């Protein structure tokens, strides 16, 4: 049930500074895979991360479809391994510093500004900022965040032992994390807007037939109620318009993701949902600025895809650096 392992000590040395070959924004699978390729190739690489290394992938209990791990692997462990691999080749990583602006100065020089007031300079910049869980924007959601409303079942699931929880959203994420909640909670109620679950069949079978699970489809959650903490969820049957209220101690929200691209919306070209458009080489419309992973338009939100994008971006960077050198 428990395990004991030694995580790498967080690196706290200040970054070496100077002109980087490659600055990567976001330390999820896309950013780290790109760092592994680039650093191993001898580039001077900096990764800037606003929170902690790992990205969304680190918040999932078990990843079962990433090749090479027949038993599956904990998201955090996979990401810790990617981090070690990147650092082994000399990648510098800064955590807890959010990039607020990317400023192309001239060919071969891009400045990256952060919330802590730092400025870094690189020849190429990769936007690998992934996405954030979407909020529903319904009454009670903000108010009870941390008091029953959660976006991370892996983190908070154990607090709901023997309690009643509601999972909003029956897509892959909702069902996968709901499966984890079924280990703790006494009842798990799934509420889905569509009239069916868009999730993988294997997840549907595991979750929907579970004796502790109840599912409502074609239903829209309209309010999360509570006093000190969450007490109930109110939803509307979309066919009949009837309102139902079910008692709940916790509400886990998995209603999709939105890209983290606010800070570059005036720089690169976005599609109507805010995802970054690139060509097949991961190049945006701005010279020297690339994008990879979940943040890229028309991409599949999967670790394998993010990792593949990261590799391509590193290759493009290598080509571009060679071009800069030949022009100099």
């Amino acid at each position: 049930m428990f395990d004991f392992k030694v995580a790498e000590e967080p690196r706290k040395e200040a970054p070496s500074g100077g002109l980087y070959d490659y600055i990567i924004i976001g330390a999820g699978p896309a950013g780290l895979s790109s760092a592994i390729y680039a650093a191993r190739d001898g580039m001077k690489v900096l990764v800037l991360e606003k929170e902690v290394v790992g990205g969304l992938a680190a918040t999932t209990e078990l990843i079962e479809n990433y090749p090479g791990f027949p038993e599956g692997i904990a998201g955090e462990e996979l990401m810790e391994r990617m981090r070690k691999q990147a650092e082994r080749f000399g990648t510098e990583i800064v955590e807890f510093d959010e990039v607020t602006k990317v400023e192309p100065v001239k060919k071969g020089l891009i400045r990256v500004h952060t919330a802590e007031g730092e400025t870094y300079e690189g020849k190429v910049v990769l936007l690998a900022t992934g996405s954030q869980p979407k909020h529903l924007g319904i009454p009670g959601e903000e108010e009870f965040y941390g008091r029953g409303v959660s976006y991370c079942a892996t983190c908070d699931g154990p607090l709901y032992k023997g309690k009643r929880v509601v999972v909003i959203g029956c897509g892959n994420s909702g069902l996968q994390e709901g499966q984890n909640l079924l280990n703790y909670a006494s009842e798990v109620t799934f509420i889905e807007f569509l009239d069916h679950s868009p999730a993988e069949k294997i997840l549907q079978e595991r979750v929907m037939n579970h004796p502790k699970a109840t599912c409502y489809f074609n239903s829209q959650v309209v309010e999360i109620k509570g006093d000190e903490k969450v007490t109930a969820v109110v939803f509307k049957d979309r066919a009949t318009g009837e309102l139902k209220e079910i008692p709940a101690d916790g509400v886990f929200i998995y209603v999709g993701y939105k890209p983290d691209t606010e800070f570059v919306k005036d720089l690169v070209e976005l599609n109507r949902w805010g995802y970054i458009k690139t060509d097949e080489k991961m190049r945006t419309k701005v010279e020297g600025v690339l994008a990879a992973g979940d943040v890229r338009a028309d991409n599949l939100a999967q670790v394998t895809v993010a990792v593949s994008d990261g590799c391509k971006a590193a290759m493009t960077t290598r080509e571009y650096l060679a071009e800069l050198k030949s022009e100099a």
Partner: protein
Amino acid sequence: MALLNDEIRGQVAEMLAGLPNKVKLVTFTQPENCPYCDLIVELMQEVAGTSPQVTSEVYDFTVHKDKVAEYKIDKAPATAIVGAKDYGMRFFGIPANYEFGTLLHGIQLAGHGHALELDEATKGFLASLEKPVHIQVFVTPTCPYCPRAATLAFEMATASDLVRADVIEAQEFMELSNAYNVMGVPLNVINDKERVEGAAPAYMIVEAIKKSI
């Protein structure tokens, strides 16, 4: 069966080799309502077994009142991580999974006797404290962000004699967790007043400390 396999034992030994000061792991168990007490004792003994600088002592919370008072323990299971002096680092519950790293970090701090990762501004602020500060960090073993919050609290405790840092495994202290409405982790509670949700950077904890005093 040993809790730590050979590989992990080797890594722990390497991390704890050459600590300048001796470290005592003072564990308090209780005979009832403690499903993990045996595990915790075994874990502390195995960790102590990796380094000549680290020792483990075990007391019964319901019996050894003098020790309970000496280490200001108000609930069990608890482990005080004590170096050349008592810096005020406590772990309540089992430091398993991600939290095992928090325990090791605490031992390193106690063994060095000074903060290892705090920036100058935070150290300066802590040095200027005049009143006691009690930081409680609620965690779960499966929460990837929790060790950040927990080790930061331990760093602060090491940096100032006025700071006491309790890391609490929320599932084992459900009543307390309910009393504080812990519905998400990590949760920092400062001087029983200020709440900071999530793994916050040091300056946010400093702000919350300022507000609380």
